């Protein structure tokens, strides 16, 4: 019965969307806002990458909300899984390394991944990329050792400090603008953070700083989330093993 109703619901929804799709103008998107932003962003924000201008300047509060969602999800997972992991016995080490080649390969890759990650973050206001993408690459750089070496663990303390501080820095930059009687979260140009020339690395005021905070936060969040799940799955398998022994 439940399957039938689910099928009916999905079928109805698909039909509805198809009907709506035929009504919508195809190939000529309405650009009430987009074209204005493309016109205005070079001199209002000063970043060569229009997407970065939208993400951090025009809709900066959305980005703040999105990174809070990530933080919330990580905190929730940490609370649930951390709670369960602490109930189980602490794990004994199982030697389950994945061999010489993958270990050496990872050691080679980590610096490269770090460079690429930070490059994408620092050039986020000039080229496609930015905090979210660069942050994910940073997270992978720190998580790779956990995948190949079973005794490698990420330090949760450092991760939680980085994620807390990076988020706070993002907000504090926004509040810094308010300190100068500007609206909250406006990337502004002041002293060291000049507007610069469009397309140069040192341009767009505080916007690159916002991107750096965003990238670090996303990276720490994701690495922490993956590490929590990895820790949990290790303790879980061991916990079930010891339960089997007692039975």
């Amino acid at each position, binding site marked *: 019965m439940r399957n039938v109703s689910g099928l009916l619901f999905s079928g109805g929804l698909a039909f509805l969307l198809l009907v709506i799709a035929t009504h919508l*103008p195809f190939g000529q998107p309405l650009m009430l806002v987009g074209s204005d932003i493309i016109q205005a962003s070079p001199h209002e924000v000063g970043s060569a990458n229009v997407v970065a201008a939208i993400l951090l300047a025009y809709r900066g509060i959305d980005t703040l909300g999105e990174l809070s969602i990530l933080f919330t999800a990580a*905190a929730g997972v940490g609370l649930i899984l951390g709670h369960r992991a602490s109930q189980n016995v602490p794990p004994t080490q199982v030697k389950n390394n994945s061999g010489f080649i993958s270990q050496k390969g990872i050691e080679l890759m980590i610096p490269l991944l770090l460079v690429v990650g930070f490059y994408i973050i620092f050039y986020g206001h000039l080229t496609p990329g930015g905090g979210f993408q660069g942050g994910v690459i940073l997270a992978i750089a720190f998580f790779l050792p956990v995948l190949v070496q079973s005794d490698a663990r990420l330090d949760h303390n450092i991760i939680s400090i980085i994620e807390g501080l990076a988020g706070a820095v993002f907000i504090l930059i926004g509040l810094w603008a308010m300190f100068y009687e500007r609206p909250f979260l406006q990337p502004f140009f002041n002293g060291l953070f000049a507007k610069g020339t469009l397309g140069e690395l040192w341009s767009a005021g505080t916007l690159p700083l916002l991107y750096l905070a965003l990238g670090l936060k996303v990276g720490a969040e994701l690495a922490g989330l993956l590490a929590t799940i990895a820790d949990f799955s290790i303790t879980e398998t061991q916990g079930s093993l010891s339960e089997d022994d007692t039975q």
Partner: protein
Amino acid sequence: MDKLVLLVVLPLLAAFLMPVLARSSQVLARLSGLLVLLISITLVLNVWGEVDKQAISFAIGGYQPPLGVVFYIDQLSLLFALLIPVMVLIFWPWNRPSSIQEYSLMMLLTASASGLMLSGDLFNIYVFYELLAVASYGLVSVQVRQGQHPVVAWVASLRYLLLGSVGSVMMLLGIAIIYLQTGTLNLAQLSLLAPEALNNITGLSAFVLILVGLGVKAELFPVNTWVPEVYAGVSTRLSALMAGLLSKLAVIVIVRLLVLLFPQPEALHLMTVLGMLGVISGELVAWRAKDMTRMLAFSSIGQLGLVFIAFSLPGNIGLLAGFAIALHHLVVKPALFMLAGGWSGRLEKLSGMAQSSPYHVALFVLLAMSLLGVPPLPGFWVKLLLVMNLAVQTDPVYHFALAFMLLATVLEAAYLYRVVMLFYKKENHTHASSQHSLFDWITAIALAAVLLISVVQLPSVERKLVSMAYQSGNRLLYIHTVFANIGTPEARIDRMSPTDQAKQPLVSEPSIKEKAIKEDLVLGSAEQ
């Protein structure tokens, strides 16, 4: 005025910093949350009277609409901006040892709730709604009721998460359809375009999708299956907060969108029908419920159904009735949840409770009478308002709604009477005793006091509600306020107070004025 963005930002800052602060000082970290709540309350009280005459809007980052995101503040959003920190402070997990992450989640809940109320941008509303949802999934799975096995609560929160995620996707789909149809996300600009662009079947289906998405939190009829399970599984304080405050926030967002974007009568009828089904199904199941918390959870579904029926009445009178019922429920239901916290287990076990704890039972009777609508308690006046206005409608669907509502009230009376009779049953050797913590008891008394004060202050409460309904029901006021900075000087003057709007010629010729603003918009963007 743009300091009000701090209502959203400061709780977020506290949430991010709490885990870091807790490493050096647990006390400092815990205090920072309370401090932020107190600052928020002060901020709102500082600007309290300023929006009575005219609403205010400001652009985040200084990027003028429709390019940037705006916050819109009128009496409605300011009232909820005050209620959110106050309610979070009341239902703070005082009574249980909590980890710092839990406090952090509470702060995220506060921030997202405030953002949801203040935001004037469709996608921004979605972001804050999603943040609210994710924070409440986390809290539901952590704040487990005492004596309840955690796994039961986890299963409930997993179901809640699945349903909530489907709802969020639906809402996002609806927003995407609106964006494709109109090319903007700013609520004021959407409201300008809505009579042409959204007054069709596409707009209606976008409304249905958004209604389903927001309905998950608002306990709307088909998507409220999570309610009894979750409220029975989580701590009383959290269930009071969710039933009292969070459900209302989603309703308020729906009402805003309804006023601004969806003028179709079909949208109103859909809400009436879903509200009718909600009220009758909620009260029927509450009638059969075996324990107090579930009974209250189902009754909450029924009350939210009433709220939906009220908001589906066309015009400002519907808004007035809706606000009245919603705010009444916001006070009464948390107090009842607080009382029910000490009376866990099957209803039969509560037999003869009045002998051992007469004051608790007396308070329960008072609150139940208000919920039912016994004069002179506020519950009577709000139900009377709804009945009178349902009866004068010519549309037959509202007469059906009236019948359903009266039937539901009879059911409500039946089960509340049964519980009260059970409490006052004469038993020679009763084992019933209530285990209320002092915090819960004080909270319940405080909320009941608010209820009684509002009986005495009925005229001023009514005045406030009327002016709130007029202000939030005024679509043109919203548009004018948001576009005041780039509009013509006339447009700025036209930001009128709700009381003398009838004298303004503006209302009688909305289309001309709107076209003028529309041209201003085009000119304004061309100048840039």
